């Protein structure tokens, strides 16, 4: 066991997988000598050489296409898209190509690609750096969208993603990179894909969240506990496809739910969670499903982002509203 930050846990996972599978490749903009703009790939080129860990020209679509071609030649690519806001440049590689190849070829070809990308607000980045775009990605058949909320999951989910034979979009929360530390095992371990986790058990209401919002939800749960309110917190971990069983089981137990996302409200993950509960768990409910999200505007970068991002008190207020409905 060692104390690791969220980003160190990610580096750890990359190092272990580069070491154990010679077909893995880490590449992207500035990931080589510089170790990535956040140092997620720090030291990896020195350890594994330029053949395995390398810089690419500055072109996201090229990085996506490169991954597909390398996968066809038998490699297990782990490309980095420097910021999630840059994926629009490579959406064809993701949505139009790699996620379709297994289907397109009748299962005769596969794309074991894990795209890593940082996202999430709260660090005052320039525009198109912190946007939560997981809702776009979640509609793509054949693509898993995975995001950890803590260092343990960051390492275990990333290792599971890399070892998976289908493409995974692995979202790393910018704000959590260095703000979270935890004791995690030094050796390789996996955290299952397609499985949500009940990170706090409760009986009165379910807060269903992911990434940084899990930590905000846990704080709300702790606060409400002092008033004798028992809050269950579900960490989705895999955003697409959803772990329906865990969500429905939790709602069956508590009878009340709030779905939480950092992204703007329209057509997002929280909407998927709410519609799942409406479709398959309506009879468990004592109140409508609540939703917490940012407003439906473009992400206001820089100084205004704190007003835009869903805050802990918004989660608390919505939780109380649904509890008292």
């Amino acid at each position, binding site marked *: 066991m060692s104390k690791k930050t969220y980003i160190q846990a990610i580096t750890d996972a990359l190092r272990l997988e580069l070491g154990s599978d010679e077909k893995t*490749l880490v590449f992207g903009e500035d990931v080589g000598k510089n170790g990535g703009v956040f140092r997620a790939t720090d030291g990896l080129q020195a350890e594994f050489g330029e*053949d395995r860990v390398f810089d*690419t*020209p500055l*072109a996201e*679509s*090229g990085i*996506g*296409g*490169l*991954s*597909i*071609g*390398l*996968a*066809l*030649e*038998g*490699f297990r690519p782990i490309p980095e898209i420097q910021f999630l806001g840059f994926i629009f440049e490579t959406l*064809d*590689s993701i949505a*139009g*190509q790699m996620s379709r190849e*297994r*289907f*397109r*070829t*009748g*299962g*005769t*070809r*596969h794309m074991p690609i894990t795209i890593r990308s940082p996202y999430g607000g709260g660090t005052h980045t320039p525009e198109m750096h912190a946007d939560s775009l997981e809702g776009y990605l979640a509609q793509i*058949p*054949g693509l*898993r969208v995975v995001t950890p909320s803590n260092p343990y999951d960051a390492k275990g989910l990333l290792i599971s993603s890399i070892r*998976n*034979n*289908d493409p995974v979009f692995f979202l790393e929360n910018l704000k959590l990179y260095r703000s979270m530390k935890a004791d995690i095992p030094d050796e390789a371990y996996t955290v299952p894909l*397609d499985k949500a986790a009940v990170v706090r058990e409760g009986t009165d209401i379910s807060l269903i969240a992911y990434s940084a919002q899990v930590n905000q939800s846990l704080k709300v749960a702790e606060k409400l506990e002092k008033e004798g309110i028992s809050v269950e917190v579900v960490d989705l971990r*895999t955003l697409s*496809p*959803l*772990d*329906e*069983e865990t969500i429905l089981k939790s709602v069956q137990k508590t009878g009340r739910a709030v779905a939480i996302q950092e992204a703007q409200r329209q057509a997002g993950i929280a909407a998927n969670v709410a519609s799942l509960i409406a479709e398959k768990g309506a009879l468990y409910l004592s109140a409508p499903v609540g939703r917490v999200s940012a407003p439906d505007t473009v992400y206001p970068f820089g100084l205004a982002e704190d007003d835009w991002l869903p805050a802990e008190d918004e989660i608390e207020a919505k939780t109380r509203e649904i509890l008292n409905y």
Partner: protein
Amino acid sequence: MDNEKPIVDFSAIRDTLGKNYEPVQVIDGQAKVLKPEIVSKYSNDQLVDFLKLMIWERTLHQRSNALTRQGRLGFYAPTEGQEASEMGSNSAMKRTDVLMPAYRDIPQLIQHGLPVYKAFLWSRGHVLGNEYPEDLHAMPPQIIIGAQYVQAAGVALGIKKNGTEDKVAYSYTGDGGTSQGDFYEGMNFAGAFQAPAVFIVQNNGYAISVPRRKQTAARTLAQKAVAAGIPSVQVDGMDFLAVHEVTKAAREYAAAGNGPVMIETLTYRFGPHTNAGDDPKRYRTKEEEQPWFDNDPLIRYRKYLTDQGAWSEDQENEYVEQVKADIKDAVKQADDAPKQKMTEFLENVFEEQPQNIQQQITEFQAKESK
């Protein structure tokens, strides 16, 4: 002050751009041998095999055209006119090379190992048409213009990293495709990694209805490779031997570890963009088309080999009949393909089925067993 010369003469620079490209020719439109030293490298039997490749592609086109009209094929992009460009380049490659085709490159795919019936199944939208055996080194035809170029760069880098000797990735796009960002990104990545890729641009004059001159201010498409730091060449795309020799040289150069190459073939799409309603009369004139029709790639090789006494009308008729019979068999084989099932589609979305897929498989199994 008005007479002062600017520090840079941009007009003069512009006028020199792309000027050093001269299309390579071996046998011209009148069947006149311009490069006897190339022609003499091949026996008449080999040249007959080359001509047969073009006749095969023309016959495949004619049958595909007819089958599409009868509703027996689905999507079809006519290849007539591009036989020298397609067969000339593809025949210079090895079966172990990796082909990244677009939708007009079905003849190359078939020559690379795809059974004709599978090509027909692809046209109909049957997934069996895309189930390639391991030893068919190709991807299904790309629909998104340019996407195959960035992927080809990745395949080429993979070949280099695997240390595979004498193997290249090769990819096709059209004149319109050279306007796409991925076209440049693919060449630039392959160049930056010095990866063994051969990029072939079939300049057939039109991107559906938009003529080549409206795609770019560049004098040639070949010169677009210069910006990526990779060598390029223009070749008479109606001249089989010229395309073949140029592609062979490009392949050897790339396979030797020198990095990628780009080839622009000057050809013409005799027919419409696809058989889904495109009418070239809306954007082309007879006056423009006729010289290209006269420049049919089959004419000059047929004439040359007939003059040599190596080919005859009877031989051609016999060969065409044989190709037609093969195509007829392929249609029958395609007709025998089983109906596609939604459960099979669902099973091929992921390797390990998540809950939503499992549930939907169960739902469709119930429907399909009725």
